[in-house]
């Protein structure tokens, strides 16, 4: 009996045998893996939030996907980061703008609604109906974890989009899934020294944390990292998702003896809590003889726009920013900006990279078989300057962020992490963040069995057949 | 000892004495009317009999058992049925279903699941309901939506729903209110037939003297929450106290 059905092959066979009009029963026994592309095209599934709180991220991701598909198929105005993508030995990517393994790239889109059920329904339809061989996208960790597990069961690849919680490559890691985005631990490790440098090492921090998985892991990561540089944690308060008005959580902050507020919020919650915090005068306040400070661990330009003026001068971390000076980032920004008229967001960047990385891995493996792709993405290189047994994986450069490792042990990506700050004098409506420091990858390195990531097993790759 | 004994019932609403020392004894198988001017406490008394209101003091005994503090459905299960001023029927159900429900209630008590049996398999219940519909001459309307019946038919249906339970006591709350004369006469006729065909006690609360004097065997006149007179109809007609209560002192 078969597993996921294989539409594309059947279509061609059916057309060929159609004249006989005799029913032919297929099972996918004959195929090595789920949705093996047999025609002249290959189907990818772009599963992004099109409704709900992260719809704007989703829309930006879709733009990047379209751009990536153009570049892969060689139909774009330029070749984007195909020009800059390099392997560890400095050689250029094997991608040539001739599709993937000579097959033209086609795609379907779906709406995750930032909802585990809807995202899985959408992904299943891509796999079962459209014959997608790889699913990518998402703008929240809950969705990433849920869809990653689904892809593992179904035997297709999952290239995670924007997902920052440790769990995605921690306790919920799966063999068929890879993450290009950085994570909570890295945010903490990158931010802590910068914060200590800017605000001193004897700060007392108060945490307002979104009451769900990402909030928990990020709060833990930031508090452990800042405690490592001498900060003290005064209080941690969980806030409901979609709270809107955070006043009742913010007002006790000043009376608590804290002098720093860490807002572990993302999306609309972050916009609202930060706006509220500024309204309540926290940025003008004094505590313990110091200026009161606010920190937002995970920044995104789209959210910075929502927070408007309030973002100015506030530290946070981000995966990538369009103003990075390296060649690859500039190429991508130009390519995206020329097509759409504004610079890409980090969400757009990460999914563009994921698409290219997948295509490259298939090309190197010479097969769409997920197990072969996983092997190609697990590579056998190591990053320079890190002395660790787990420093093995696929190393590449030229996709922004400098030399990058896809670690074989947990399928997490290791690269430099950006610490940013809300820009005081923005020159345009996109120019909201400035990169304060590029934290080298060695500083955000951790072992796969780090307590914040413990409890997960990749398991075996699943080709589905 | 009557089938329904009301003893020293008092009920106050705030400062208003709605019922004051009501004593009433209703003989089994009689037709007893309670009349009185507006605000005399007729409805309050009726509500006390069916458990909707609980008197402040006093007792209400049905066949020797107190009805006070019991829920409406428990009182019905004791053998008391009630006809409302505006017919209360199951408008969304068919006429036949309307009659089946009280049959089932009579047989099975306040709750039984029957979640899987087919309604039409209940042969004895179906026969009972059909016979009842026949008695009130509504067989031809058995599959109609009850809500689409005429006012008179609704009244007959409600009556049928009460009677099919073979109640020992039937309470009628202004059964002809808002009816045209012809309908009123039909209703009187129907009640007469009912009375003749089975042993049943009826308590009628009524404005319309025509109805009262056509049916009642005994009449209680209520005024300002207390029984004024209780007697056979012939004696009530010219009773000076009754005239005073209805017409005021001017009479």
């Amino acid at each position, binding site marked *: 009996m*078969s597993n*996921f*059905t294989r539409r594309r092959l059947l279509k061609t066979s059916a057309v060929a045998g159609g004249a006989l009009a005799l029913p*032919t029963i297929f099972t996918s026994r004959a195929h090595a893996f789920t949705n093996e592309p047999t025609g002249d095209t290959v189907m990818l599934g772009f599963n992004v939030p099109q409704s709900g709180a992260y719809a704007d991220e989703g829309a930006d991701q879709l733009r990047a996907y379209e751009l990536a598909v153009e570049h892969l198929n060689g139909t774009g105005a330029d070749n984007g980061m195909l020009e800059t993508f390099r392997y560890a030995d400095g050689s250029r990517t094997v991608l040539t703008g001739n599709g993937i393994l000579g097959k033209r790239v086609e795609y379907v889109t779906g709406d995750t609604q930032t909802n585990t059920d809807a995202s899985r329904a959408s992904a299943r339809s891509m796999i079962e109906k459209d014959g997608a061989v790889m699913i990518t996208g998402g703008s929240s960790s809950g969705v990433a974890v*849920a869809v990653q597990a689904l892809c593992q069961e179904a035997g297709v690849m999952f290239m995670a989009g924007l997902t920052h919680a440790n769990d995605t490559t921690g306790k919920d890691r799966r063999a068929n899934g890879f993450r290009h985005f950085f994570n909570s631990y890295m945010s903490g490790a990158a931010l802590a020294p910068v914060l200590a440098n800017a605000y001193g090492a004897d700060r007392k921090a108060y945490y307002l944390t979104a009451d769900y998985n990402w909030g928990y892991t990020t709060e833990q990561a930031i508090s452990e990292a800042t405690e490592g540089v001498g900060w003290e944690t005064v209080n941690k308060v969980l806030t409901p998702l979609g709270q809107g008005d955070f006043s009742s959580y913010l007002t006790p902050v000043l009376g608590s003896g804290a002098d720093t507020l860490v807002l572990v919020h993302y999306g609309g919650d972050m916009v609202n809590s930060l706006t509220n915090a500024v309204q309540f005068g926290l940025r003008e306040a004094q505590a313990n003889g110091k200026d009161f400070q606010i920190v937002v661990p995970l920044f995104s330009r789209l959210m910075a726009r929502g927070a408007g003026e309030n973002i100015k001068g506030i530290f946070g971390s981000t995966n990538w920013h369009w103003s990075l000076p390296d060649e690859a980032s500039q190429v991508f920004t130009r390519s995206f900006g020329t097509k759409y008229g504004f610079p890409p967001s980090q969400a757009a960047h990460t999914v563009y990279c994921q698409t290219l990385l997948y295509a490259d891995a298939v090309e190197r493996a010479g097969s769409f078989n997920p197990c072969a792709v996983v092997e190609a993405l697990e590579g056998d290189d190591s990053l320079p300057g890190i002395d660790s047994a787990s420093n093995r994986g696929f190393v590449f450069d030229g996709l922004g962020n400098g030399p990058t490792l896809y670690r074989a042990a947990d399928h997490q990506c290791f690269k430099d992490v950006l610490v940013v700050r809300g820009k005081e004098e923005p020159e345009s409506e996109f120019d909201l963040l400035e990169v304060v420091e590029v934290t080298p990858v060695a500083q955000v390195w951790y072992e796969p069995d780090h307590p914040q990531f413990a409890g997960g097993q990749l*398991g075996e790759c699943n080709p589905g057949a | 000892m009557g089938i329904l004994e009301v003893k020293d019932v008092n009920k106050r609403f705030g400062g208003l004495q709605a019922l004051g020392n009501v004593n009433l004894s209703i003989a089994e198988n009689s037709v007893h009317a309670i009349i009185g001017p507006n605000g005399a406490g007729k409805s309050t008394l009726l509500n006390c009999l069916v458990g909707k209101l609980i008197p402040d003091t006093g007792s209400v005994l049905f066949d020797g058992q107190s009805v006070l503090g019991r829920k409406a459905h428990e009182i*019905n299960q004791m053998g008391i049925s009630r006809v*409302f001023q505006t017919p209360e029927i199951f408008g969304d*159900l068919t006429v036949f279903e309307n009659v089946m429900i009280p049959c089932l209630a009579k047989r099975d008590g*306040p709750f039984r699941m029957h979640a899987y049996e087919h309604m039409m398999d209940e042969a004895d219940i179906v026969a009972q309901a059909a016979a009842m519909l026949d008695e009130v001459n509504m067989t031809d309307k058995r599959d109609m939506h009850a809500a689409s019946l005429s006012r008179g038919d609704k009244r007959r249906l409600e009556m049928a729903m009460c009677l099919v339970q073979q109640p020992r006591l039937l309470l009628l709350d202004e059964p002809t209110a808002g009816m045209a004369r012809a309908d009123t006469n039909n209703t009187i006729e129907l009640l007469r037939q009912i009375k003749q065909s089975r042993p049943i006690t009826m308590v009628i609360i009524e404005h319309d003297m025509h109805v009262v004097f056509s049916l009642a065997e005994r009449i209680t006149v209520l005024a300002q929450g207390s029984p004024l007179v209780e007697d056979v109809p012939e004696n009530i007609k010219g009773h000076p106290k009754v005239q005073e209560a209805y017409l005021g002192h001017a009479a």
Partner: protein
Amino acid sequence: MLGLNRKDLTLFLVVLGLVVFAPFLLNPFPDASGLARFNAGYPDLMQRFVIFGIFAIGFNILFGLTGYLSFGHAAFLGIGSYAGVWMMKLLTVNIVPAIIASTVIAGLASLVIGFICLRRSGIYFSILTLAFAQMSFALAYSVLTPITAGESGLQLSLSDPRILDGAAGNSIPAVNFFGITMRDGFDWAMGGWVFTFNFGYYFCATLMLVAFYLSIRIFRSPFGMMLRAVKSNQQRMNYTGLNPKPYTLAAFVISGMYAGLAGGLMVAVDPLAGADRMFWTASGEVVLMTILGGAGTLIGPVLGAGMIKYFENIFSRLNERDLNAMFDFLPDGLQGAAVAVAQMFVGDGWLLTLGLMFMLVVIFLPGGLVEGGQRIARLFRRKRPARRGPDSDRRSPQPSPHPGE
């Protein structure tokens, strides 16, 4: 036959036919044609049709019969799902214990919640159920994360005990029914069409048929009649010697168990239980399904569930390219305009379509799709004498569809 009268038997056989031949009926367009985007005959969506059909059938037993509008039934769906996944984690990935546990535990939860909520009626009842469901959602999403895995959803993992299954090796075993995995199935290519037959779908479909059959029996039983009596006139019910409370509670628990079964099946075909399925909009969705199809009718909720799931899964996935392909026959300028207009209603605009459609149904077809079907049927039957029993006349402003159309 089966204790059904002829009309009900016909209805049941029609539904049986629809369900058995769904893989054909839902794939009317050849695979290669542009309209293939509108095909719905793939396992996930077919499973959703029948699972949400069960959910809506159960909801209809409460709302359609008693008129009690619960705005919190998704809580039982969620509770069923969590119970199911825990069974798979603790005992075995065979779905039988999971489904039994889902139904039973959701039944217990609905007994408790129903007992409290049914102390009130009308909108007060609705708000009480809503409050309970929102509490369940909030707790499942955050505080109960150790039990529910919160935001990312409870799923199977390699380290689960699975007492009855024994060691599993290095990959999570597939969810199965005595060895047949839910994903099993085969494709049948014929002409330009490819029809997908999936075991998970037929398993859920069988249970939906059972659920549907039970619902017919309940509708036609004295119990069903009592429930309609509750909706019609509680006062008369009381004065007829019946206690409405146990009846409504029984209906509440039955519908809660249907919801639990649906929740169990959801994790049986896709082993992840997320808190999102308990959110109040999910409760609202089943209300929409029931009303859209026709509350109080037997087939309505199934139709409504199919309709909404179709929109949610097919319309939301149409994008600009699909529209361009669809309107290809128009001249260029018109094509652009048509695509621009249509884009408002598909893709991320599918909710707009749903909202509009829903308003139109409530305004013009208060009896739902079933009433629409009846009106069309009447148009064709006009010549014949129309009056046959109570359900021929249903144009009153407050329709109360007779069960069974």
